[in-house]
């Protein structure tokens, strides 16, 4: 029987939640790395027993952990992230040049094709790659070096490369997103990059439709159609039909189009999920009601999904890496909150239940569907 494993990164450790295919009863393992911030935990799609975790601390720096037994045991691997060459400068909050400084790994993206290959998105924004299971890391410096790097500026959470999406069709194509620089694409395995932000409009920058400078929060795609991208931007939910060459807004009838997460149903490429958050200054759901919104039409027409979610006095946030889907026949949808809940839906979002209530603030949620 199939089973699922939910990998949860929190402010104070990692947790592994597991259940059989019924998804009715959950085993909670953890905390792993207690007291450390776990920005992201993600498993190799090629070898599901191999899981990578980003463990960091403002005091003690960055550690990368790896498990080769499905999260039961862990061992530290390489934590040397050195920018290629002379790092140069980017824009600081006040517009002055600021040297590139490594702070932490926000996102780990194990390759779709090789269990030893894994990408790391870091703050200050850069993309690193390991070919040996995380032991050694080298920067794909064509991203920072393509020309616009000196113009990038941090968002409120820092200047982080937080989203890495590998094309399931083309092994040389990667999409990344950076706050607050925008989205970028490579078609030659990371050697050269180009901004893919045409159609984005951001009120918070001097030139609303600039080539770079947009605070992209998350990008998602469906494997069956990797040219169709969905984006939750700072404000606005966007869609691209041409692999990011152009974007159009699909916020439609959402109550607010600010938010962090976006994800796509495992079996329905046009079914998309977001969690609207009130605004950039009010990071909790509108009216204190936690609602996931689902579009079955690739955006524009959205329905609120609230059954089982708190509908009063709820003031949590759902951060950018904190939503995922499983690929069981009835698609499961999962998200975590800054209040420490992880909610699961066994019916594609129609109803929800908290599978854990009181974890530390959740930073990331990933799901494995195991045979």
């Amino acid at each position: 029987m199939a089973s699922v494993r939910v990998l949860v990164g929190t402010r104070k450790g990692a947790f592994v939640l597991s259940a059989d295919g019924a998804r009715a009863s959950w085993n909670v393992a953890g905390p792993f790395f207690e007291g450390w911030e776990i920005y992201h935990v993600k498993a190799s799609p090629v070898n599901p027993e191999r899981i990578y975790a980003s463990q960091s601390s403002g005091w003690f720096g960055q550690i990368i952990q790896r498990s080769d037994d499905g999260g039961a045991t862990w061992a530290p691997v390489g934590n040397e992230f050195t920018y290629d060459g002379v790092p140069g400068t980017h824009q600081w909050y006040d517009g002055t040049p600021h040297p590139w400084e490594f702070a932490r790994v926000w996102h780990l993206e194990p390759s779709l094709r090789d269990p030893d290959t894994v990408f790391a998105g870091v703050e200050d924004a850069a993309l690193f790659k390991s070919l040996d299971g995380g032991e050694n890391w080298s920067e794909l410096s064509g991203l920072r070096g393509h020309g616009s790097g000196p113009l990038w500026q941090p968002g409120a959470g820092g200047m982080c490369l937080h989203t890495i999406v590998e094309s399931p069709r083309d092994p040389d194509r990667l999409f990344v997103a950076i706050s607050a620089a925008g989205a970028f694409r490579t078609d030659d395995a990371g050697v050269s990059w180009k901004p893919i932000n045409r159609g984005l409009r951001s009120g918070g920058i001097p030139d609303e439709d600039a080539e770079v400078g947009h605070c992209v929060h998350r990008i998602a795609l469906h494997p069956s159609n990797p040219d169709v991208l969905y984006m939750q931007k700072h404000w606005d939910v966007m869609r691209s039909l041409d692999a990011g060459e152009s974007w159009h807004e699909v916020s439609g009838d959402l109550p607010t189009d600010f938010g962090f997460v976006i994800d796509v149903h495992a079996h329905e490429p046009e079914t998309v999920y977001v969690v609207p958050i009130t605004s950039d200054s009010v990071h909790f759901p509108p009216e204190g009601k936690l609602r996931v919104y689902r579009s079955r039409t690739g955006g524009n027409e959205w329905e609120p999904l609230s059954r089982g979610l708190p509908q009063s006095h709820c003031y949590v946030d759902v951060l950018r890496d904190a939503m995922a889907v499983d690929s069981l026949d009835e698609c499961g949808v999962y998200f975590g909150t800054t209040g420490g809940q992880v909610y699961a839906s066994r019916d594609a979002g129609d109803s929800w239940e908290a599978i854990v209530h009181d974890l530390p603030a959740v930073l990331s949620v990933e799901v494995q569907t195991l045979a």
Partner: protein
Amino acid sequence: MIRVVLPAHLSLLIGRHGELTLIVDEPVTQRRLLDSLEEAYPVLRGTIRDRVTHQRRPFIRFFACEEDLSHDSPDSVLPEPVIRGDEQFFVVGAMAGG
């Protein structure tokens, strides 16, 4: 034998709680102590001081003999009671919060 106490986060990281003991070549300096510590526990590289510059991380402190040694030169000799093993050398995560 030098006696070293790590903060809880780093003890967890190396999987060993309580006091550590290290053999450090003379003259026993902060730099040599940290070199020995990192050689014994390579996972600590980068967690106490920068991997390349060996600068102490901003929120790390070194205490011994009721003194803050954080701002001492890494090449100054550690206090005699630490070298004799009478006193512990503490690596501390700086107090923060509110």
